[in-house]
């Protein structure tokens, strides 16, 4: 099998897995049971297909076997939460020739599944992981490494979340009216969390696309397709595309880290930037401003350097001010301070950093990078080095650590 075919097969499986699982979970209102049933069906397929040949409609075969597995569990327990579910399954069970073609395409309930995964009743820390596992079928071990969690801990949290979905009877119907924006925001945040983890994990010698970046872009495109009137979903997609467009420029040919301002913009993916800008325009036409659109607009302003040769810092400061008004995160505060410094007022930039709550900066590397940079701009070399040392100590990626060491501690250029 060629690589292309393998990739296409994997993509089809991913698409199919999420569709099948979300449909079963939506019908059954029990994610864990649906997963078990789907796993049972896949196992049965591995056992039967080699003997009987691949059925005319593998999809229908799997769904029928999965439904039968669900029904058996229900009969065994002699209760379900929803009598309508049993009636529906009984009805299906009456004519369940596994080799019969599926009469109707499986409806797409993946967005509903995402809403459930990012439900406010669930621990926010599991939202992204649950989504990656259920909608895309990613392996828990793979997810655990990305989330910097012991695999056993993550597995435990996922199991607990699924039990809660069942026991609390979380609704699988899509949220409506005033509830929708907040629920959608939680879905988008979970997708962005997955993207950020993938982004941080990109290493200089890694030329294969990072799994999580890919998966997050896929999920964002899915949300945009399934919820086409959400400006924030488009904003998130634009934001991630703008970051992704710079992947090739983040490390030089020797594998050394290159910060944004020093990147060779000839190595940015212009087509991706144009694509992102179009999403951003479509989003702004909907007139629903939000944090992801503002963050995307900030990244779009940085991307302007590829076309105009300059970075519009004053405009970026204004965008950060809007962002802080609706989403005053520590990341936005630090970004605002740096932009203020770059726009010509590093003293004011430092004053903005000083306003940040000190309890939140002990582990927050970007704060110390920003502080070192602004202190260097104001000519305070000694204090800048001290801040840089904190940043170096908090850095996760060896390439970034080496860059900071080389830049601020010229004497100790990293190996």
């Amino acid at each position, binding site marked *: 099998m060629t690589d292309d075919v393998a990739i296409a097969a994997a993509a089809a499986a991913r698409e199919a897995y999420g569709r099948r699982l979300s449909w079963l979970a939506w019908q059954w209102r029990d994610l864990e049971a649906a997963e078990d049933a789907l796993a049972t069906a896949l196992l049965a397929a591995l056992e039967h297909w080699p003997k009987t040949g691949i059925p005319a409609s593998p999809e229908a075969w799997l769904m029928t076997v999965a439904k039968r597995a669900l029904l058996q569990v229900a009969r065994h327990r002699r209760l379900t939460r929803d009598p309508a579910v049993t009636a529906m399954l009984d009805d299906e069970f009456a004519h369940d020739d596994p080799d019969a073609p599926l009469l109707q395409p499986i409806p797409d309930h993946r967005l509903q599944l995402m809403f459930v995964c990012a439900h406010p009743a669930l621990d926010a820390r599991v939202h992204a992981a649950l989504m990656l596992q259920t909608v895309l079928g990613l392996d828990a071990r793979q997810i655990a490494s990305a989330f*910097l*969690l*012991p695999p056993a*801990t993550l597995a435990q949290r996922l199991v607990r979340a699924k039990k809660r979905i069942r026991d609390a009877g979380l609704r699988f119907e899509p949220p409506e009216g005033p509830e929708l924006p907040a629920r959608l925001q939680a879905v988008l945040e979970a997708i962005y969390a997955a993207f950020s983890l993938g982004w941080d994990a990109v290493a200089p010698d890694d030329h294969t696309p990072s799994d999580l970046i890919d998966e997050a872009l896929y999920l964002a495109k899915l949300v945009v397709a399934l919820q086409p009137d959400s400006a924030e979903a488009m904003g998130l997609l634009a934001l991630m595309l703008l970051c992704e467009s710079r992947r090739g420029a983040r490390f030089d040919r020797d594998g050394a880290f290159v910060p944004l301002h020093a990147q060779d913009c000839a190595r940015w993916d212009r087509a991706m930037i144009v694509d992102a800008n179009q999403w951003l325009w479509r989003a702004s036409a909907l007139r629903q401003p939000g944090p992801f659109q503002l963050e995307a607009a900030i990244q779009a302003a940085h991307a302007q350097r590829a076309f105009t040769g300059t970075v519009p810092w004053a405009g970026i400061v204004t965008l950060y001010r809007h962002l802080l008004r609706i989403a005053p995160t520590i990341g936005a505060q630090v970004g605002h301070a740096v932009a203020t410094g770059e726009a010509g007022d590093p003293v004011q930039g430092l004053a903005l950093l000083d306003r940040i709550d000190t309890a939140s900066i*002990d*582990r927050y590397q970007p704060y110390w990078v920003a502080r070192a940079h602004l202190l260097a701009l104001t000519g305070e070399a000694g204090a800048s080095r001290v801040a840089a*040392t*904190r*940043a*170096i*100590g*908090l*850095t*996760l990626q*060896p390439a970034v*650590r*080496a860059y900071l*060491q080389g830049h601020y*501690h010229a*004497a*100790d*250029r*990293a*190996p």
Partner: protein
Amino acid sequence: MQYMLIYKETAEDFALREDPATADAYWGAWSAYIGSIAQAGIMLSGNGLQPPHAGTTVRLRDGKRQVQDGPFADSKEHLGGYVIIEVPALDDALEWAARSPACARGSTEIRPVLPPPPARA
């Protein structure tokens, strides 16, 4: 919770310590890392260790004492140092462990510290 972060380094890491061309960067990264743990106010204790060849191993087998130079086990990674930190949960310990310069080539193991045994009645 108290955790010991156990830094295991490779022969290459230990060589970086000695080479004048790389020693500054090696120690710079470690002192920045340990410094950030101390500044976060979570450090209880810790030490760096001299390389494995500076060690001596002793054991008793069949009543006979055996002393040998260097480490007992022939392994790719050797203990280079450790710290004990006080953090709320394993998640936090893992985050600090992942920042360690040892992770780039070697590894960092996280072990919960045993609580003191209950006092006898």
